[in-house]
């Protein structure tokens, strides 16, 4: 049976004076069993123009920054908003989150996230393979953060009754 998921894209625009924009992550909000979760798949940006050291650092730390911003969005969102809508309002400049859209799919949230990641993020297929290989070799406990090669994996429960943040993506320069 099809399930409705909401998703948004994390975009990187290296310069506000230029139109170039790169999709770097997909965030999907939807149910897993009785719980509502956020599943995030992403990679660090690869802009074609040089960016500041600050921007590079933010890109490298994006999984942790997003995790923090998602937790904040969960805390501060208006009752009528979903988490992704609230997050979209908190990232509006060089790193921005698109307006959430909906998709119906019969697969689990992780499959939906990887499908959207392949669809929207350049070079995502190799990252998806890396991730799948990594997860085949791992027994995932309830909460874990792993960096394997250039693949980043986070799985953690969010304090509160309903929401969990999961993220996976590439962290540049990470090592075994």
């Amino acid at each position, binding site marked *: 049976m099809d399930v409705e998921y909401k998703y948004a894209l994390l975009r990187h625009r290296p310069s506000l*004076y230029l139109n170039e924009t790169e999709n770097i992550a997909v965030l999907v909000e939807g149910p897993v069993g009785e719980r509502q979760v956020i599943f995030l798949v992403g990679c660090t940006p690869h802009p074609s123009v040089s960016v500041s*050291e*600050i921007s590079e*650092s933010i890109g490298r730390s994006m999984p942790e920054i997003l995790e923090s911003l998602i937790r904040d969005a969960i805390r501060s969102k208006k009752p009528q908003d979903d988490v992704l809508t609230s997050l979209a*309002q908190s990232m509006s400049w060089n790193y921005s989150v698109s307006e959430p859209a909906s998709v119906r799919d019969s697969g689990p949230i992780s499959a939906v996230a990887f499908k959207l990641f392949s669809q929207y993020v350049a070079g995502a297929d190799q990252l998806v393979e890396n991730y799948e290989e990594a997860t085949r070799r791992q027994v995932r406990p309830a909460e874990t953060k792993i960096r394997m090669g250039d693949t980043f994996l986070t799985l953690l429960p969010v304090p509160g009754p309903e929401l969990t943040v999961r993220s996976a993506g590439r962290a540049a320069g990470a090592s075994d």
Partner: protein
Amino acid sequence: MPPEHLASICKEWRRQLFTDREWVRTEEKPISPGEAGGYRVASAEFPFSAYLKPLRVCELHEPRAANEKIVADIASDLKLSVPPVLLYRRQNQPSNEEVRCCISLVVYPEHHEWGQIWNLSLFPQSVQLLVRDALSSYSKTFALDLLIGQTDRNNQRNVVLGADAASPPNTEFLFLDHAMSLNYGNRWDNMGWKKVEMVPIPDILKSSLRKDLVLDGADQLADLADAHVQDIVERIPEDYMASAHRAAVIAGLNGRKHLLRQFVEQHLI
């Protein structure tokens, strides 16, 4: 301080009241649509973009655009970290959106919401040092926040870190969102301006503030001539800010500037 190549534009925006350019929207997604909202705009043959706001129609006692212009002009005169602002009367806007808007110059090719760097431990030592050094120099801008009655800096979005890869020393924090300051909601009426309150700020700024610099900023604001403040406020057109409201803003600014030093002495460590 704006980057050198923008200095003449910033000076021009301070001198002018309205933009003489036509601006077009560059992105589909409005920013902060749940609040007053806005979006980025560009103008033909002008190499820099700007941020247009507000979208939501404002009541007369909520003069958002006028407040932004007044605060930006005061900041410009004291070389504080607020982007320059011009008023912009929109044409052909949707019927449910505001006509009386303003545009705020996008001063750097990179703007990063400061909420992204609040957890400094995520970043390399060099970036941590840069951010801490930069933050302490905004103590004077904090004094401006006290003067205008800024109600919330403890917000991940209303300060951005501007950076330019082509010119690495050009990195500065820019204080945004002054729409709900001054006499917003007529809160300064009936001598309400006398109530100076601490601005809520995040820990990262709290730990970086230097009291001596905040006091310097307070003294510089106190030294602004009454007539100078009056000139900045009085040139705002009536439909952007009614005359009674302007009078309250002038009285408030000229009264509060003399309360700042004592307030800072008592409330900052």
